[in-house]
C-alpha cells in the first residue's frame, strides 16, 4: 500500500509523517503545486504551518492545486488523514465538520497527552480497541475543536467523534474533549495530536503507530476483497 504525504511550502512534519508511514508501507511526497496523488491509497496532510498559518490556520493551503485532487479523491471514498495543521486544512476545505480555534490558553502547547479511542470502527482506528488509551503528543496554538451544538450532537450520535482527550488531558479547550473526528462516510479523518510523532518509544511513545497500522490493515483488507 502507498501513503502520499502532502508537502506545502510551510509543512514541518511532512518528513516525520513520511517516515512514520514507511514503517507500515510505501510512502511518497505529494508536492502542493502538482495535481497528482501519485497513486496513493491514503493521503496524509501533515502538520506544520502551511503558508505560515497567516490569516487562519489552513485557510490558504486548502486552495493549493493538490487539494483539488485530494477533495475529489475524498469524495470518491479515498482515505484522507489530516494531522494538526492538516486537520485545520480539511475543516477549511469542508471535508470535515467544525473548525479549530485558538487554544484557550492562547499559547502554543507541546505536551504528551492520553487519548481515548471512542470509535474503533473506522479505517483509522480499526486496529485499536474501544476505550484503548493512546499516548500521543500534541503541539499547536490553534487546536480547540468547535462545532455548533446541534452538529456536535450529530457527530457524537453518528460515531464521527473518533478520539477524545482522556480526562484531564484536554490541552486546548476543545468542546467535549474532541481530539479527532471523521466525516460521515468515515473515509476522511482529522486529529490534532501527532501520531507520526508516536511511532517509537525511543523518541517518546508508540501509540500513534496504531493509527498507521489500522490504515495498513484496512487497505490490505480492501485490496484482498
Amino acid at each position: 500500500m502507498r501513503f502520499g504525504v502532502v508537502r506545502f511550502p510551510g509543512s514541518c512534519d511532512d518528513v516525520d509523517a513520511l517516515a512514520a508511514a514507511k514503517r507500515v508501507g510505501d510512502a511518497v511526497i505529494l508536492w502542493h503545486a502538482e495535481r497528482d496523488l501519485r497513486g496513493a491509497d491514503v493521503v496524509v496532510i501533515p502538520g506544520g504551518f502551511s503558508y505560515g498559518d497567516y490569516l487562519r490556520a489552513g485557510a490558504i493551503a486548502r486552495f493549493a492545486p493538490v487539494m483539488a485532487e485530494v477533495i475529489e479523491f475524498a469524495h470518491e471514498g479515498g482515505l484522507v488523514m489530516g494531522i494538526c495543521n492538516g486537520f485545520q486544512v480539511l475543516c477549511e476545505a469542508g471535508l470535515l465538520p467544525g473548525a479549530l480555534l485558538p487554544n484557550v490558553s492562547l499559547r502554543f502547547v507541546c505536551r504528551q497527552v492520553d487519548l481515548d479511542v471512542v470509535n474503533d470502527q473506522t479505517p483509522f482506528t480499526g486496529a485499536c480497541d474501544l476505550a484503548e488509551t493512546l499516548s500521543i503528543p500534541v503541539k499547536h496554538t490553534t487546536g480547540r475543536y468547535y462545532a455548533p451544538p446541534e452538529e456536535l450532537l450529530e457527530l457524537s450520535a453518528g460515531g464521527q467523534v473518533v478520539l477524545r482527550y482522556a480526562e484531564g488531558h484536554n490541552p486546548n479547550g476543545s468542546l467535549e474533549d474532541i481530539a479527532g473526528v471523521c466525516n460521515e462516510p468515515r473515509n476522511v479523518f482529522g486529529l490534532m495530536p501527532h501520531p507520526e510523532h508516536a511511532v517509537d518509544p525511543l523518541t517518546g511513545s508508540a501509540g500513534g503507530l496504531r493509527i498507521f497500522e489500522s490504515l495498513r490493515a484496512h487497505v490490505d483488507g480492501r485490496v484482498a476483497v
Partner: protein
Amino acid sequence: MRARVLVRPKEGILDPQGQTVHRALEALGFAGVRDVHVGRLIELELDDSERLPEMCERLLANPLIEDWEIEDDHRAPEREADRP
C-alpha cells in the same frame, strides 16, 4: 480604492483573546469596560470592491465561526490621519 473587512468571532463562541484583553485592561486599572472582543482587520487597496463579499466568503472569513463586514472606501480615513 480602499476597503476594509472586519472579521469577528461569532457571538456565542468562546473568545479567550477578548477575555484576556478584558482582564488585562481591568488589571491596568481601566474601569467600566464591560465586554471585549478581538477579531481581524483586513485592509485592501483594490480596483473595485464588487467581489469583496466573495473574497470574504471564500478566504477572508470562516462563516462557521466568524462574522464579517465590509466598510467601503469613504469611511476609511487616510493613513496619515490615523493617529488621533
